[in-house]
């Protein structure tokens, strides 16, 4: 698709207007809090280090979800709104499996570790399959025929359906699940503390537990695996070709629909893994947690440059750190607003993100 330069025709500098509005807003409201924040950071470096490490852990799982957005957007230019809720379903599925295997904090490590790995793989399979089915039933028939707005609205619909599935999941009381869903369907579900919480930096005043290391480690392994898959294998090459030009890829004998399905499968698998890791790390999962996580991850994907895999990882890390700092130095209540604010600022100033190229916003 040839990129037109609409600004050549328009007489009014739109982007400039928007940018001026944002700059005025920032100067008015954000200068003083920002100065205060920097002062507080310098005053207590130990606290800063602790928050940065929390940010790295959060960033790892945000990056996993962000990759799902970026893979799908890179190929079909659809903001897969339901992706955050897929992550939530991943957490619920893994919790049900943990209940089914009756894993508790008492289970010895020799049994616990392999089962956790099995649960992780099963969860990834579950969310991957679900994402693929959704693509097939809800998005595929809108591709090419409807406008992009139709696909986006459909994705919002799927997001609500998923959220409701999560809500109804809370009612499941199968005997084999050993009561992991608790007695109240709507309330947050609690995960058993299966990951070791030993502090690796004990005595330094900085906290980075073994479970942080596990979350970061698993995420990094998956991220590297995905990167290698996309950049080295034949299927990965097909994905990149389809993202670049769908018609030309089809002419070269690439099965476009299957390649798009593959993007959904990969994204879904990563979302599932992320759901399980966050569930184990935070110890809770609730049916509406996908909304916030999804928006943070989408912000991360846009920040890194949507469609760019390394960008999504970088963006995830940055958003994780920013939200951890905002939790500490501004207030937990405002963190979501901060993240949305960042999203707005990026989209207004540099819609291509940090690492993206200029072809992103094909309208």
């Amino acid at each position: 698709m040839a990129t037109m330069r609409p600004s050549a025709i328009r007489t009014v500098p739109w982007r400039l207007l928007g940018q001026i509005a944002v700059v005025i807003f920032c100067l008015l409201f954000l200068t003083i809090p920002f100065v205060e924040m920097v002062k507080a950071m310098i005053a207590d470096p130990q606290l800063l280090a602790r928050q940065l490490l929390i940010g790295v852990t959060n960033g790892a799982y945000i990056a996993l979800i962000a990759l799902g957005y970026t893979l799908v957007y890179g190929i079909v230019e659809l903001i897969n709104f339901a992706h955050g809720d897929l992550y939530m379903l991943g957490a619920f599925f893994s919790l049900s499996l943990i209940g089914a295997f009756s894993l508790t904090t008492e289970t010895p490590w020799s049994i616990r570790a392999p089962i956790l790995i099995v649960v992780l793989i099963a969860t990834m399979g579950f969310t991957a399959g679900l994402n693929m089915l959704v693509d097939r039933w809800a998005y595929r028939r809108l591709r090419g025929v409807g406008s992009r707005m139709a696909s986006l609205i459909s994705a919002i619909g799927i997001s609500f359906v998923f959220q409701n599935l999560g809500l109804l999941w809370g009612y499941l009381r199968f005997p084999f699940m050993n009561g992991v869903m608790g007695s109240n369907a709507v309330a947050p579900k609690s995960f058993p503390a299966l990951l070791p919480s030993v502090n690796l930096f004990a005595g330094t005043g900085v906290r980075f537990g073994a479970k942080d290391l596990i979350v970061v480690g698993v995420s990094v392994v998956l991220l590297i695996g995905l990167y290698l898959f996309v950049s080295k294998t034949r299927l990965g090459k097909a994905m990149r070709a389809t993202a670049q030009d769908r018609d030309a890829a089809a002419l070269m004998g690439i099965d476009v629909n299957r390649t798009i399905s593959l993007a959904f499968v990969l994204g879904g698998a990563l979302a599932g893994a992320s759901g399980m890791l966050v569930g184990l790390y935070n110890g809770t999962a609730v049916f509406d947690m996908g909304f916030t996580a999804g928006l943070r991850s989408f912000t991360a994907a846009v920040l890194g440059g949507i469609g760019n895999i390394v960008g999504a990882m970088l963006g995830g890390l940055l958003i994780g750190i920013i939200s951890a700092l905002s939790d500490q130095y501004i207030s937990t209540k405002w963190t979501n607003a901060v993240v949305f604010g960042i999203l707005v600022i990026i989209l207004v100033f540099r819609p291509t993100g940090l690492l993206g190229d200029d072809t992103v916003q094909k309208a």
Partner: protein
Amino acid sequence: MNTRIRSSLIGGLFGFAIALISGGFAGILAGLVAGLINGFSVPQAEPLNNRAGAVRQGLVASLIASVLTILGIVIRSVLIDPVIGTPLNITSLLISIIGALILGIPVCVIMCVIRTEPPARERIGLAIVIGIVLVTYPWLDQFLNLRFMNEVIPVLVFILMALGLNIVVGYAGLLDLGYAAFFAIGAYAAGMVSSPHFGISWSFWLAIWVAAAVAALFGLILGSPTLPLRGDYLAIVTLGFGEIVPIAIKNLDKVTINIWNYPLLVDFDFTGGTKGINPINRPWLPVIGEFSPSTPIPWYFLILGIMLISIFFISRLRNSRLGRAWTALREDELAAGAMGINTVNVKLLAFAIGATVSGLAGAFYGSYISAIFPESFRFDVSVMLLCMVILGGLGNMSGVILGGIIIQFADRLFLPQFSTVVQKLIVASGNESLREVNFASDFRLLLFGLTLVLMMILRPQGLVPSGRAARVMPPVKVEVPHD
């Protein structure tokens, strides 16, 4: 003949569902609804001006619809009511059936006759029928002891908002996912100037204009950074604003601003935080006195009036130069710019006018429930409004109203009633495992989600497609790309 039977089946199914779920004298209302829907969906009769044919047609159609409705009434009274603890009452059953027939059949016949008139007279006739139904509804409700009024008023508020959203999404083609924010801004603006919160206690009639103006201003402010964005990026940014506004409202209850150690504000309670603003003044009129929460009729006519005025202005705008500019913008922004349309102004006006309508709705709603809380303006409200607009038909006002009625009644009347009935049936059947499922709150999201997805797949142009919107939501050729 085929379409005629279909329309009577649609009407009958609505009647069936209402009668089955609501019980009591709602069966009579069901007859009326069945007749109305039947009349609406009946195709324009050929040839025109064949009254006798129309009456015959109407009789047949209304009989089919009535049979379904009566079936609903009978199942409800004979099979369900005894199980859930209301004994079978033959007299009230007979009253319901006869009432449904008396209301349903004439309405349907009249509608069918009107539909055979030439277009100009048909429109006037339909307007008169709708007007009569709207004006007499409160008394019908009282007479039948239905107590639906407290639900009907919020339904109208949300339909008003859907009409506003339709300006932004349907006319100008800007997908706005944070529209509920303007509702909140309107409600809070009105609440702040007419409540004890700041000690400013203006009349409702003044506050509602303040709300509209503040909402319009915020429409401009929030619209301006999104000007360079299109399509899904625009949607996400508006979604972000839609989330930031409730967060800000919730947390601006202890504002402290220090400018270089000079305290400008200390713990200033700006929005009331999670407690919200409470109580908000109610409107006052000479004859009626202060509107009271226990008599819904003045509220009903107030919101109806606001709605009719808004509909009038929106439809005038729609056919104005600005309305055509919106259409041009939606169809092709580049071409619209090249034709000399000032796209910035046109976009901003769409945001501002849409926000104004929402502000009016917010001011009314705040005054009606006499309190506002930040939690009532979240993303699901925006999505519900979007559902209403899309279900009815983007860019078509009567479609949006129809979509609004369907979604809102399903959400506020049908699901809760359905939930109560199912709950009682479950309790009666002795099965404890499903007892805690609350269908009203637990299936709302599913309802919205499925509506959006199915509409996009099956009928993206909506139930009542707009002629001009054809290019935005082209009818889908159901042709799944094969593997």
